[in-house]
């Protein structure tokens, strides 16, 4: 379980599909948190965020497996996986919107009930709303159970950048959570350009 993503990706491509198991094990909590956050966000109004997120995570992993030959840089497996997850989440949301629209047509003049933000995944929703660099570090650190050192290696950035990003991510998370308490509809504020620059070095 200590091998790199690249190693497992190449093993899979070499015809050892069972090694994909290691990547599933490594990223399933991260994916689930990310997808739960995505689906709980934006007033998607999913009845059951957990089930929808699990379904989406499954779909994401299966798709990733079958598209693996299209992954140009095997070391970028994780960002690539998240991009697939984002697509899956978008598709699910679209389906949900169609479903609800149908329902609201059926319920005729009745106003569609305002979507409820999932209380269970409030934190994940805020994480999912963070700019990519911060989101990635938080996801990998806590949901992926990786140390800052491991993250630095995986993302090929200096340890200092990881810790700075993590600190900043905490700050953004806090202010977003505070804002959410006041106004649940509001999104996480985007950082200024200098902050993004800082992360990119």
């Amino acid at each position, binding site marked *: 379980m200590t091998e790199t993503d690249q190693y497992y990706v190449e093993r899979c491509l070499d015809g050892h599909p069972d090694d994909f198991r290691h990547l599933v094990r490594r990223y399933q909590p991260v994916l689930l948190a990310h997808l739960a956050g995505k689906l709980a966000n934006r007033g998607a109004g999913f009845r059951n965020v957990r089930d929808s997120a699990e379904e989406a995570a499954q779909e994401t992993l299966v798709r990733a497996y079958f598209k693996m030959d299209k992954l140009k840089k095997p070391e970028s497996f994780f960002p690539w996986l998240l991009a697939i997850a984002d697509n899956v989440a978008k598709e699910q949301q679209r389906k949900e919107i169609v479903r609800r629209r149908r329902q609201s*047509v059926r319920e005729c003049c009745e106003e569609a009930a305002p979507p409820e933000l999932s209380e269970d995944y409030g934190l994940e929703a805020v994480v999912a709303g963070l700019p990519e660099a911060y989101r990635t570090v938080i996801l990998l650190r806590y949901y992926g159970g990786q140390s800052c050192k491991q993250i630095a290696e995986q993302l090929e950035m200096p340890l200092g950048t990881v810790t700075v990003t*993590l600190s900043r991510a905490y700050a953004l998370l806090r202010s977003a959570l505070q804002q959410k308490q006041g106004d649940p509809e509001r999104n996480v504020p985007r950082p200024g350009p200098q902050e993004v620059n800082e992360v990119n070095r």
Partner: protein
Amino acid sequence: MNCTECKELLVVYFEGLLEDVQERAVEEHLKHCEACRAELKELQTLRQRLVHGARATAETDLEDRVMNRILQEQNERLRLAEQAGTGLRFRRLIMKSPLTRIAAAVVVVGCAIGVMLLAGTESVALADVLARIEQIHAFAYRTSMTIEDPRTGTTKMDGGVLVSNEHGMRIDQTNVNLHEGQETQTRLVTYMLPREKIVAVVNHAEKKYARMSLDDAMLEIAKTQNRDPRQMLKALLSCDYKDLGTSVIDGRRVQGFETRDPKYLGDTRENVHVTLWVDVETRLPVRSETEMQIGEGIQFVAVDTDYQWNVPVDAAEFKPDIPNDFTADPMDGTQMPSFSEEGFIEALQMAVEFTGRYPKTIDNEGLRQLSMDIGNAITTSDSPAAQQWREQIKSAGSKENALRAGQERMMKLMALTMFNMILGSQQRDPVYHGDVVTPTDVELPLMRWKSSDSEYRVLFGDLRAETVDAETLAKLEAALPK
């Protein structure tokens, strides 16, 4: 160390990543600063929440589910790859019957004709030609067709066609199919008999025959099939066409007309190129060329020549001539599928039963894909429909019976393209949304067409049909995804 410096290091501090000197400095500052202690506490609470959230999501076990799905799908893909063969074999089996071949020819040819009813025209010349032919009660011509299909090889058909206003149509043809180095020759005589409402096919290569009944919708198609020059002219007149000027064919001065207008095929998507040469003196067609592409990679070329007008006709020529030693094909006595709304719905129903979804398109390529999918489903799927079909094959008693039942059902699928094509040719504005509508979309329009000047017939995702006005239709279609 001041508070700003300290606060910036707090996260790194509890991550345990500070160097000894810094760590001691932070600890020293914290001892004396309540505000920073509060800040640390808050950050740690947040961290606790993250850890807690992570624990909750870590409880999941997708591993086995994902791996099972991957294995399943992998096997399925392998099987499909291996079975691209089986699917094709199955398709070939279907295509083997002379009847289905004729039915397939009906699809192809009907498509070429695209049945258009003439509605006014500015062209004097072509309309004039049409008027001339319409006075003719019987005519004959020679036809030669080539169909190149990467999947079934090259098929050349040569034959003579005799058309009588009174009796119907008779086609004598020899088909030669060349596929993977194997040549198969078939001699067929086909009779389309509108009064009896049947189509009869006599296969001289296999010494078999079959007579199948047609409903009115099918008869309409049958009448217009095989590039009847009258229908070609009507179609040409309703399209954008070009006058090619004069030329000489067989010593006769002719004038050419050409169209590449997709309307010629009732706006089905195939590319089309049609040229018609008309004798300048007699104002009657001398030669026609029809070229088109069907779906992916099927090339169809037909050339008709040697038109003879007002030929004497003997009723006996339209009586199916079946030698005594010929036997009935399993298809004998069956009903050709209905290309009506009901037939169309039935075909869609069948698609769902076997594949769980609607075909993305209902052109020839969509139909081809669907028959392959159903062919695969019959052998591999656990759906009740597939199981039932397998049971039927088992209990059919004989191969022949099984084949016959199978063919009859598969032919019903043709209603998908045919119904759409008939609507298109009648300019009834058919639009199909199978690419986005699923069987569970009970409020979304799967297919619609004009039922009168102001009303549309709409088929919903659950295959229920309703007649609505244009405004309602617009609302329904606005709800479609994308």
